[in-house]
């Protein structure tokens, strides 16, 4: 394993200290592992809190700031944060209007956020949870853990953050989050496995000419293994898989995220975006807004995910609203 770390046990603490040093405009609680905005809102507003295992940077800490999250809780690598941490975050940013938890749908996250929500409620902090579960690689069934939350987290956190900033009420903000999630689908392909520091070696072995199709963001293998093919063909498969599960028709507009999994050069991500753009254009679907880059990563995994969120005027307006975070900034 080759990593720029001190010891596997101290990765999170060390990286968080670095994040705090790099972002003096944020309030980073190193003990509780909470990244929060540097200043409290002037008037009560719904606070948006997210979190999840580390190794997905810039998610979620990179999205804390005006217009997006109020706080983020990084767990250990690929391990959801603990309830204490989430409760500390809720306490830190609650300004009287309640808290929305944005939770990617993984058993660990659901359980830990769930326990935290109970504890917060006991303290009189009203909590609503927005579950993100956009990954069409996973069958959606009530008998299983259900679909994973991946790239759509960016769209949900951006939209929910923008609406909260405008002073919308707790239920309204939570309902929007659910709508954005429902309008989003993702699918990912990996060219290499990720190496969890504590594991010390790649999560799976992949021959030089094979890829994993339908991977998540935790280094787990995908739904199947395939031969590596030209980007155009891979993208065609990814786009078609996403569309097959989507309710998009010609004339619809989307926000598209071509997301790097951590080890893929931006040059390739732009190339992929070009293919996505062309494939969608063939089907009459217009990309109204896009992001190309590393946003929801899986440590050093090479590969990409595509997220398409159907976007009407409401969502586009929220998307365009100003945001000022470490990873996403516009005016």
């Amino acid at each position, binding site marked *: 394993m080759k990593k720029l770390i001190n010891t596997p046990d101290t990765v999170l603490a060390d990286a968080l200290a670095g994040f705090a040093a790099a972002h003096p405009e944020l309030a980073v609680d190193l003990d509780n592992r909470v990244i929060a905005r540097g200043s409290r809102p002037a008037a009560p507003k719904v606070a948006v809190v997210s979190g999840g295992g580390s190794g997905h940077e810039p998610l979620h800490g990179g999205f804390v700031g005006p217009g997006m999250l109020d706080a983020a809780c990084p767990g250990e690598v690929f391990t*959801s944060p*603990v309830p204490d941490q989430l409760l500390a975050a809720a306490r830190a940013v609650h300004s009287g209007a309640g808290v929305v938890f944005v939770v990617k749908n993984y058993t660990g996250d659901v359980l830990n956020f769930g326990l935290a929500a109970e504890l917060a409620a006991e303290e009189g902090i009203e909590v609503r949870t927005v579950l993100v579960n956009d990954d069409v690689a996973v069958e959606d069934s009530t008998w299983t853990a259900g679909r994973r939350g991946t790239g759509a987290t960016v769209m949900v956190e951006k939209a929910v953050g923008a609406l909260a900033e405008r002073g919308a009420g707790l239920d309204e903000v939570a309902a929007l989050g659910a709508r954005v999630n429902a309008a989003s689908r993702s699918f990912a392909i990996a060219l290499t496995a990720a190496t*969890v520091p504590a594991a010390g070696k790649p999560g799976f072995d992949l021959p030089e000419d094979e890829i994993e199709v339908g991977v998540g963001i935790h280094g787990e293998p995908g739904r199947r293994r395939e031969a590596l093919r030209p980007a155009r063909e891979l993208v065609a498969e990814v786009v078609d898989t996403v569309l097959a599960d989507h309710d998009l028709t010609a004339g619809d507009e989307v926000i598209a995220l071509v997301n790097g999994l951590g080890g893929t050069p931006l040059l390739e991500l732009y190339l992929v975006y070009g293919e996505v753009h062309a494939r969608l254009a063939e089907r009459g679907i217009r990309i109204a807004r896009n992001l190309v880059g590393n946003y929801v990563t899986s440590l050093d995994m090479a590969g990409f995910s595509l997220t398409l969120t159907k976007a009407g005027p409401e969502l586009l307006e929220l998307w365009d609203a100003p945001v000022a975070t470490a990873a996403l900034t516009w005016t």
Partner: protein
Amino acid sequence: MDVIDIPLVLAWVREIAAAVEQQEARLTELDSAIGDGDHGSNLRRGFTAVLAALDTLDEPASVGAVLTRTGSTLISKVGGASGPLYGSAFRAMGAALPGETADPAEFAAALAAGLAAIRKLGAAEPGDKTVVDAWTPALAAFERTADTGLAAAAGSAAEAAAQGVLDTVPLQARKGRASYLGPRSVGHPDPGAASTELIFRALATALGRLKPSG
């Protein structure tokens, strides 16, 4: 009289911690195959914190106090799926054991409460390829053999848990991360089931080593 007392339950938890420390790499390897490769480090982090927490716990008032503290610490320190699940299980066992000692039947009831907590929180059924698939047969074996003495019951529970782990191999996961693999989850043991086996083996080890004082 064949009872579990506070030293013994402390010894149990310490045995778990030692086993987790020793088996960390194996648990992580199992989790790498069908999960995200952190189960070993998750539990080691948790039980390291548990040992520290128990050191600061002076004069626990009951068997349950030890287990409740263990569970709370796991919840506070582990994260992931296993933190809340095992944490809640230990807290439920703690709540079920308010006395300074517990007899085999009481202890069996506590183990059952632990399993119930896991199932309530995680909503896993037997056969979903989770800790439930080791804890369920272990509990059944313990209950079946409880009147043969605690050490023997713990031993048969550990064996049943081990069998439970093996029985997860052909299963397709329906809960936890392994479920994302669909049919590719078949052919591997469940890491959580494997750590549950460690928990029951640790009980047998503690009981075999410590002569209960009660």
